[in-house]
Every structure is written in structure tokens, then in C-alpha cells.
């Protein structure tokens, strides 16, 4: 398989349950996935399949009545300077330790841009807050001071002033070797400048102006851009986009998807795209994980998924989307509906809706196996095999 050097996140047999009045909802039932460094991975499935719960478990945001029952979320943290990799099990960290990770090493963009930015603070201040909290800005403060003095130098006429300013610049340059702890006011100022820089990076028109605006003054697409800027402010190793473009119109969605693709190559963040739209997956992802009713059912490269899906559920999902080029009278449908997770079906959770189900599917739960080279699926009767492990 892949070495630890390439992988940035490995979710191992994750179990999450919610203890409600009606019973225990087994939301995640042994989820397995890994994310390679610099990749974009799609997490696909229908409502209630556990996509968002997986994201929350990664970020340590599973709240009561939910509980992580078992499994590991291993994060391979690469130090930017030493290139050293430390292994962290995010499921075991305390909430204080998690604060260091969340928003800094791993960040998330949520679905609804209307509810997530705080409505009473300016966009720029909200981004600056993240930067202040997680980053050491002492160097940035010095750069900012020097830049200001240089501007003053170019404007001044008197020689006395000139000499004074030059000596100040030299003093700050000296400090750069071992930057002193800056005062709060200049930290705030430097953070704000950095926030504007972030807004510029996400191609926001007139970033200086937007930084001073409130969320309600922006349109949906611009708000989503601002949220992406906020998430990327600390150069995270992983960015999770939880249905980040679902609430947007197609033309704006196309803009945001293009931006995500550009940013990935620019700053080298690994991205997890959570979506139910196969088109979005094809547009952005290199690797796809398909989930059904809290289990991982298929994991493979994107081209592979679209040409040769192994799991009957994936195949059904791909066929059920109305195609823009075909004139079909009827859409092929998957019968029935998503099961209730308080009493999920035995064995393979998909068997009541599956056309290929047999006795074994009702009795034993299939495990996620590498049925084809670099193509994992959890199915007793995969749709095709070419000398794979099983051929029934």
C-alpha cells in the first residue's frame, strides 16, 4: 500500500453512534479511508450515509449524544521546516489539544455560507482572528513596520527626517534575526493585512473593501470565497469542504470549483470534498470514497469509478443521475430508500435494495478489500472481476 510519507490522513475502522431516545443510531460502522498528500479526495453518498459525521469525527466535533465508539483517525503531521512527520491519533486527543489542530492544521468549509460567518463581525476581522490565534506574527509585524517606514522615506524631503527613518529601518532589520514579542496593536494590524492577502488569494474583487464589510453585504459566492480564505489562513494540511458548493448556483459553483483546483496547486493543501454530486467529483477529485449507510463501500481513482464501478450501489448511483446528453424515457432507479440506522439491515447494509443479493449478503458483512489493483470495494458479488480475489 502507500507509505506514511505520502499519506496525510488515515481513518481506520471508525465507529460513531448517537444515543437518542428512540435508540442507538449507528451512524458510522467501520469507515475506512486514506488521503494522500496533495490529493483531492471525494466523499460521496446520499443523505444520512455518514459523510458529514466522518468530517466531524476527523475534527473532533462529534457532540453529545454522539460518541466515537472505536477506531483511529491518524493524522501524519509534517513539520514545515524539518519535514519531520509526527503521527497523531485525533480520536484520542483532548479538546484542548484539538484546538491546536482545528483551523490550523485541518480546517473545514461548511455547506451554507449564509449561516457560518458571524453576522456581527467584519469579514476581515474574522479572518484575522484565526491568524492571530494560530500564527506567530512577530516577523510579519517587523516587515509591516519596515514597509511603512520605507513608504515614509520615499515621501519625505528633509534630510534630518531621512536619517532618522533610515536608522529606524536598520534597527528593525537587526531585530529580524531574533524577533521580539510585538505589542497587541501591531499584531492586530499585521493579522488584518494578512487577512486581506488571503482574500486576494481567493480572487476576491476589491479585497481591502471586502475586509471591512459585514457578511450580509456579500453575495453567496463571495461569502463562500471568504470562508475558504478563512479556512486557508493558516496553511492547513487538510481542507474539508462539506458540500461547499451545494447551495450555490451552477455558474457560481463553477467559479468556486475552479478556485479550489487552482488553490490546491498553489499551496499544496490536501482537500476532502464531501458531496452528493457526481459532476463535482469528476471536476475536482483524484480519488473517491463512496459511502452507504455508515459504511465505506468503494474506494478507487476517479476515472476508475466512472468507467468500472465494482459495487452495485455505486453503479446504481451513477445511472440514476439524469444525463444531459441522453433522451431516456425512464431513469434507472435504485428501489426502496436509505435504511433507518437505528436498526440497520444485517450483513451488507445495501442488501435489501440490491439486485444481486444472496444468502451470504444477509448473513455476513462484506469487508473493504482490494478486489482489483488499487481499487477497494466491500461487496460479496462485485460487478466484474478480472482475475481478482473473488469470482462468483
Amino acid at each position, binding site marked *: 500500500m502507500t507509505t506514511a510519507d505520502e499519506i496525510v490522513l488515515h481513518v481506520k475502522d471508525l465507529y460513531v453512534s448517537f444515543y437518542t431516545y428512540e435508540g442507538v443510531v449507528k451512524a458510522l460502522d467501520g469507515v475506512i479511508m486514506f488521503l494522500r498528500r496533495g490529493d483531492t479526495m471525494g466523499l460521496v453518498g*446520499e*443523505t444520512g450515509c455518514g459523510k458529514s459525521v466522518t468530517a466531524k469525527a476527523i475534527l473532533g466535533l462529534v457532540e453529545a449524544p454522539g460518541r466515537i465508539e472505536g477506531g483511529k483517525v491518524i493524522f501524519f503531521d509534517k513539520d514545515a521546516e524539518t519535514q519531520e512527520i509526527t503521527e497523531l491519533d485525533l480520536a484520542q486527543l483532548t479538546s484542548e489539544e484539538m484546538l491546536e489542530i482545528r483551523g490550523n492544521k485541518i480546517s473545514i468549509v461548511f455547506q451554507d455560507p449564509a449561516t457560518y460567518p458571524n453576522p456581527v463581525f467584519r469579514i476581515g476581522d474574522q479572518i484575522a482572528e484565526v491568524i492571530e490565534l494560530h500564527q506567530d506574527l512577530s516577523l510579519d509585524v517587523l516587515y509591516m513596520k519596515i514597509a511603512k517606514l520605507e513608504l515614509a522615506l520615499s515621501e519625505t524631503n528633509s534630510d534630518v527626517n531621512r536619517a532618522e527613518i533610515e536608522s529606524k529601518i536598520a534597527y528593525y532589520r537587526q531585530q529580524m534575526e531574533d524577533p521580539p514579542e510585538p505589542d497587541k496593536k501591531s499584531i492586530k494590524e499585521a493579522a488584518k493585512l494578512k487577512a486581506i492577502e488571503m482574500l486576494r488569494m481567493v480572487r476576491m474583487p476589491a479585497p481591502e473593501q471586502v475586509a471591512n464589510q459585514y457578511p450580509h453585504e456579500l*453575495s453567496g*459566492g*463571495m461569502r463562500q470565497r471568504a470562508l475558504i480564505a478563512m479556512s486557508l489562513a493558516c496553511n492547513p494540511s487538510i481542507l474539508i469542504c462539506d458540500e461547499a458548493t451545494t447551495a450555490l*448556483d*451552477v*455558474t*457560481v*459553483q*463553477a*467559479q468556486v*470549483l*475552479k478556485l479550489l*483546483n487552482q488553490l490546491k496547486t498553489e499551496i499544496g493543501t490536501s482537500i476532502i470534498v464531501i458531496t*452528493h*454530486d*457526481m*459532476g*463535482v*467529483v*469528476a*471536476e*475536482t*477529485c483524484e480519488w473517491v470514497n463512496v459511502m452507504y449507510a455508515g459504511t465505506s463501500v468503494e474506494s478507487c481513482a*476517479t*476515472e476508475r469509478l*466512472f468507467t468500472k464501478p465494482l459495487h452495485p450501489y455505486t453503479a*446504481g*448511483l*451513477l445511472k*440514476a*443521475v*439524469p*444525463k*444531459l*446528453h*441522453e433522451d*431516456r*424515457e*425512464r*431513469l*434507472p*432507479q*435504485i*428501489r426502496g*430508500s*436509505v435504511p433507518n440506522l437505528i436498526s440497520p439491515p444485517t450483513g451488507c447494509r445495501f442488501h435489501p435494495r440490491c439486485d444481486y443479493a444472496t444468502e451470504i449478503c444477509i448473513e455476513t458483512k462484506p469487508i473493504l478489500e482490494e478486489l482489483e489493483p488499487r481499487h477497494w470495494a466491500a461487496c460479496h458479488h462485485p460487478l466484474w472481476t478480472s482475475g481478482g480475489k473473488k469470482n462468483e
Partner: protein
Amino acid sequence: MSETLIRTENLKKHFPLTGGVFRKVIGKVHAVDGVNLEIKKGETLGVVGESGCGKTTLGRTILRLLDPTSGKIFFEDEDITEIKGRALRKVRMNMQIVFQDPMASLDPRVTIKNSVGEPLVVNGVARGRKMRDMVLELLEKVGLTEDHLNRFPHEFSGGQRQRICIARALALNPKFVVMDEPTSSTDVSVQAQTLNLMKDLQDEFDLTYMFISHNLSVVKHMSDRLTVMYLGKIAETTPYDIFRKPLHPYSFALVSAVPIPDPQFAGRAHILSGEVPSPISPPPGCRFYPRCMFAQDVCKVEDPPLRDLGGGHLVACHFAGELDFGKSAQMEYADSVEEAVS
């Protein structure tokens, strides 16, 4: 087929904007701004557009759920713009709507039997035992059973709830049904079931649909003719495949922004700059010109009328038919799929 069921003439719906201490009218939202439209008997007219383009307002105004600011609405050649009271109720028996969110449109404290049967009781068609039998018949048509009669909305899944709403819309045997984003809150596998059901019911009950959605693939799948709206106006109405032959620059941009479910074509979307302007003060002239890459001086001044470019293909663009958009990734994708099939 050729008989007209619904016709609108220069239909307008403006919402007043109030402000200040005395709630003075300080402006108006031009939600629907001069729409001429015709829906023929037995066909499905699809309406697409981005949020805020006025597609939902148009549907509701046609049903007289909203009173039009100006213009006229005809149902079977009868002017229904001004009718009130009993006459309106009689016309409404023939016109129904299915809303986007089925949970919000079903009363949580009323059983399915009474919810679906309410139109029957209100209009004096049936009550008691007879009503129950008719409701059961309707529920069976949409794939539900007798067991479901006395249950409450929360006991159903999203797809089932939407089917209940469809059954209720069909209770009075209407001629015309507006489907307002009926599948946008359901999952793909359930969406396929709902769309198939709606097609079956259309054949069985001889229905005429106005199908409103922001999802181009779904609308295209359902419709005989397709209307693209932009900022309260019709940009294009086409009986042809919009993916292959868009004539309005906006339709082209809209079509080529649809993500293609094939990774080979990733990164090929045609990106439209900017965002939809506010319908409070829409741009003068052609409403699309600030974002249009073909805009000329005439577009800034003159509002292009809807012209027929042959075969009922109506386009509101000064240069319709003269513009060369090139081939979108979507068209190439369609060609590649066709090649693979043959």
C-alpha cells in the same frame, strides 16, 4: 397537443420594498418583468434559471397565488387575471402546485388521509367513506399502501412525503400542475423514482406540467420545451436540446457550467464572470450585458425582444443566431458518449 392551455401576456410581478420610519415604498423588486409564455396541452414546459431569476414567482403568479402587478393570464382562453371568489376557486380546481419542501407543505398534525383528502372535502367532491376510498386510490397511484392512510408526515421519508404531496395535488384531477423544484431536497436515487413517477402520472392523467428547477439535467430530462430565465425575463425558449443548440449567450454559459460526470472533461467549464445583478435595479437594455462577452453598444440601450428563430425557438438577444460560442465541453462529452454507444 397544439391547443394552448396557459398563456401569459406581458406578465409582471413587482414586490415593493419599504424602508424608513413610515414604511415608505423606496423601490421595487422586479421579480417577474414582462413574461410572454405559452404552455400547450399535454406538454411539460421546463423553467430553469439561477436563484432570484423569478422562476418560482412566475409559477405562483400564473396560479394566482400571487396577484400580478400587470399583464394578463389566460387559462384555456379564459382571462383569469382578475377573477375572484367562486370563479377563482373553480379555476383553481384545475391548477395545482407541488412545492419544494414536502415537510413544510404537509401539516405535521394532520394524518395523510385528511391531508390528501382536504381538497376533496373543501370543494364538496367527497367526504367520509367515499373520501377515504378516493384517497386510498390516489395513494396507491403514487406507490403507497392502505397502511399509510392514518400516519403522520414525520413517519415518512423525504421521497415518500413528496409523493404524498403529488397525490394531494392530483386529488381534484387537475389539468395543469406546477412542479416547483420537486426533487431538489431529495437524494439522487430517490429523485430518479420521483421523476419516473411524475412521467407515469402525466401519461395516465393527461397532465400538463410546468417544471421549475435550477438543475438543468433534471429539467431537460422532464421537459418537451425549455425556458431559460434571467433576472425576471425569458432569455430563451427552445423545443430543441439546450445542451446542443443554445442561442442566447446566457444559456450557453449556464449549460457549460454544469459539471460533467466524467473526469476526462474536468476543468473545462466556461466560467461566467461576476454575479447576477440585483433585481431591485436591473441593468437597462439587455439584462445580461454586464456579464456577456459578446455585448455591443446596442445591448446597453435597447432591451432585445423575444424573437422566433424558426421552429418555435424563441431568443431574446440582438445577435441571436449570429454568435459563435464554439463547442462546449458538454457538447464534446455528448458526442463522445454517442460515439461510444454506436
